[in-house]
């Protein structure tokens, strides 16, 4: 599926034309240059590889640099691949701009959620806990975790306390409410995973994508 890389710039609110307030996440698109193309013949699958976060030459190893030198590209810190048909109209070195997105598109956004550390069962799984007062000694505990000698063990996948966050999450079907070509940024309705400044992958699941105006130019 086609996708681009971006940096979560943060959230704000905008107004729709009929005065309704819309919560939006602002995603600043990365350099979005096609670093290389994988082909079925050579690699066993077809994909485009995009670079994110330009870096100085001295920050990379020779092996990493070779990749960029070969095609005369700028250097990137991070690379991500998106599986695509081989005939997709994007050549190596091509630069993708924000105008591949259109207002009204539904996208999936994937990112690494904020780490929350070791959390109890109420925050982590939304269990209700016990009453706060009236002499209750049962506040934020999980309650019973099983039966008795039959089955004599705790069921698998029992919701228990533990580490929360810092996992890759995809939020599906987020509507694009704004495209800012001059800023290389898009506005997405709702929240996306991660802290401000963290990298997100934006997937655009449109089967007719290759026919869009934006790709005809590049």
């Amino acid at each position, binding site marked *: 599926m086609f996708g681009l890389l971006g940096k979560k710039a943060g959230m704000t609110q905008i107004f729709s*034309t009929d005065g309704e307030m819309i919560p939006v996440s602002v995603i600043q698109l990365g350099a979005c240059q096609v670093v290389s193309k994988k082909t079925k013949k050579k690699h066993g699958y077809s994909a485009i590889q995009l670079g994110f976060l330009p870096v100085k030459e001295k920050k990379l190893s020779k092996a990493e640099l070779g990749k960029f030198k070969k095609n005369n590209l700028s250097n990137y810190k991070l690379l991500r691949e998106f599986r695509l048909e081989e005939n997709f109209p994007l050549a190596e070195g091509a630069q993708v701009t924000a105008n591949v997105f259109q207002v009204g598109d539904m996208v999936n956004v994937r990112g690494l959620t904020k780490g929350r550390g070791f959390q109890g069962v109420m925050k982590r799984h939304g269990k209700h806990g016990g009453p706060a007062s009236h002499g209750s000694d049962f506040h934020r505990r999980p309650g019973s975790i099983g039966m008795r000698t039959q089955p004599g063990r705790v069921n698998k996948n029992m919701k228990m306390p533990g580490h929360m966050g810092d996992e890759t999450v995809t939020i599906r079907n987020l509507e694009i409410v704004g495209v800012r070509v001059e800023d290389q940024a898009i506005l997405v309705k709702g929240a996306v995973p991660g802290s401000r400044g963290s990298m997100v992958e934006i997937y655009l699941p449109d089967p007719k994508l290759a026919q869009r105006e934006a790709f005809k130019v590049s």
Partner: protein
Amino acid sequence: MGLIEKINQENLRKDLPKGLRPGDSVRVHCRIREGDKDRIQIFEGIVLQIHRGSVGASFTVRKSSYGVGVERVFPLHSPSIDRLEIVSKGRVRRARLTYLRKLSGKAARIESERNITSDVVVEEAAASA
């Protein structure tokens, strides 16, 4: 300027009267959607409090309607506000006039500050000159 700040600035309304304060009497001309037609309704009352903060700013207006107190919170920068008129400036000593909720009739009046009003007029005249 950061990207978020830039987007916020574009979404702010610049046509609203300056110097809205708690205690002011205002007339809010708000657009109301009925089917596919717009209608303008006027809500007139006293500004109880202003919640500041970029695009998310809002203000609360209280009025008494047939003896029943009615409060409405308006998003300050919403396009659903057609026009905002400051009818008179009030002299108050608090940022949040929640004490008005307990009062009614004569006790709920607010002393109007004529000096401020004339100041504003003078400023506006100076600005347009």
